């Protein structure tokens, strides 16, 4: 357990709070860019602040306070202009710095309004709009590899989760939950739905793999890295595992990203847990499907987005895919988990490491130091794991093998099944499998000739 004071420090994100000040040192993904193409003015809430994200008529982006300075009208009803966003009530015009640029009907010359709206820099990368809400000058926007990896197709799944962000993020520090949440619970749900036979006949089904997570554990490990945190499990045949092996789990990119699958794999993902406020999280599943050299991924002009449902038409939780299973567990811990009352054990030691790392970085900001993962000049591509993918060993690119066989029905186990790109992804996976089969056959022929 942690003290009540520490729980507050780690979870509260409003202005002036310890964790809120840490979060304000980072570029925060706030919306898919594609959403602004459909609706150029969006009311959003980030780190407890109500803001308006807009795209002006020339394509420029702005993020400003949500109330007009004049009569406090909510600017979500604003009219995009060439230079900014215009209040729909009396036409006051605001630019991306929050400055009032024009007050129609007030006559000329117009005296300068000394007050400004709150305004934050925004930029687009990889189909996401990012905001920086901290002290200026803003650092560089980090080019994490999935945002810029070539020869890929992408889609973005969005969920609003009714709990504090840290519950979502601690999931990544928890290597053992898979056995039940994605194994035994999954089995129970499929049995209840009468879909057990149809959905789990193949041993590659993630439920079968996840149930083995808790069997034959020799070691659970976790360690800090340059960009965050890695953890995994080593298994021993002598202790009941099916083989001696190591299974690395998803990694943390500090402060609120997690990556599953390796960059360059047929399916990899950043899950990004953006705090809306203390009790709500904007969850982004940034899904990237990469083709290896020799296979061409289709071109994409815009990265589409979608909302994976977490409840059925009757209002009951949907529990037959991995992300929804996690989300139910996060919300079930309460709006802000009371960590003063929990009972962690030795298998939870990666969570301790994750919390320690968060507290260390909060302290750095309090001491006037820069926290980790702030870049003044981002490299062209940052590999969170420290190295690019190894295409000479394609079998190791995906942690869970089922995720390279979406064309064989395994997309059903992930939120991706709801995504607008899923049919293109299945086609890509089919072509990657055919390519790998041809490559292996060629290698075999070559070795026979030799």
């Amino acid at each position, binding site marked *: 357990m*942690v003290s009540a004071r520490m729980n507050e420090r780690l979870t509260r994100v409003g202005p002036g709070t310890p964790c809120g000040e840490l979060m304000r040192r980072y570029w925060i993904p706030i919306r898919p860019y594609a959403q602004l193409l459909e609706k150029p003015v969006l009311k959003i809430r980030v780190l407890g602040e109500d803001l308006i994200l807009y795209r002006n008529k020339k394509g420029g982006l702005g993020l400003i306070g949500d109330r007009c300075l004049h009569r406090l009208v909510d600017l979500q009803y604003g009219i995009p202009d060439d230079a900014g966003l215009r209040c729909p009530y009396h036409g006051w015009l605001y630019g991306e710095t929050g400055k009032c640029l024009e007050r129609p009907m007030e006559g000329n010359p117009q005296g300068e309004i000394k007050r400004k709206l709150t305004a934050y820099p925004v930029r687009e990368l990889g189909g996401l709009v990012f905001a920086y809400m901290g002290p200026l000058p803003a650092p560089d926007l980090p080019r994490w590899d999935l945002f810029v990896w070539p020869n890929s197709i992408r889609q973005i799944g969005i969920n609003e989760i009714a709990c504090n962000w840290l519950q979502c993020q601690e999931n990544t520090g928890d290597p053992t939950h898979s056995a039940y949440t994605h194994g035994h619970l999954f089995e129970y749900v499929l049995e209840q739905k009468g879909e057990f036979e149809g959905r789990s006949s193949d041993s590659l089904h993630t439920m079968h793999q996840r149930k083995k997570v808790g069997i034959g*554990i020799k*070691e659970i*490990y976790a360690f800090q890295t340059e960009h965050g945190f890695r953890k995994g499990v080593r298994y021993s045949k002598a202790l009941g595992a099916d083989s001696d092996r190591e299974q690395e789990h998803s990694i943390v990119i500090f402060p609120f990203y997690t990556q599953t699958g390796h960059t360059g794999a047929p399916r990899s993902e950043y899950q990004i847990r953006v705090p809306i406020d203390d009790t709500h999280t904007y969850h982004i599943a940034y899904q990237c499907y990469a083709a290896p050299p020799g296979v061409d991924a289709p071109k994409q002009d815009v990265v589409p987005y979608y909302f994976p449902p977490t409840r059925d038409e009757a209002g009951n939780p949907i529990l037959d895919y991995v992300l929804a299973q996690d989300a139910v567990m996060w919300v079930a811990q309460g709006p802000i988990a009371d960590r003063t009352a929990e*009972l962690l*054990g030795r*298998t939870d*030691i990666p969570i*301790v490491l994750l919390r320690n790392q968060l507290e*260390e970085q909060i302290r750095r900001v309090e001491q006037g130091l820069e926290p980790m993962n702030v870049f003044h000049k981002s490299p062209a591509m940052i590999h969170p794991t420290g190295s690019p993918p190894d295409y000479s060993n394609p079998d190791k690119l995906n942690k869970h093998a089922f995720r390279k066989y979406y064309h064989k029905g395994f997309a059903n186990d992930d939120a991706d099944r709801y995504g607008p790109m899923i049919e293109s992804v299945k086609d890509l996976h089919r072509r990657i499998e055919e390519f790998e089969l041809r490559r292996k056959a060629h290698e075999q022929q070559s070795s026979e000739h030799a």
Partner: protein
Amino acid sequence: MPARERIEAVLQGIFDQLPTMEVKSVSLSPANPREGDDVIARIEVEGARYVLCEILSDGRLNSARVIES
């Protein structure tokens, strides 16, 4: 804070967060850490298990491993 006190504070923080982990004994390597030393703490816990914690000289918990003996 002297090195040993800093290490003990980190370990106590771990134990406080893991109340169901019964600690039998703790040994440090090096046994008598000096200022600037990184330390590996070996924590014997109930069952045939132990925990290795790497604590850096600045008091950061850098890595942890829970191992079946």
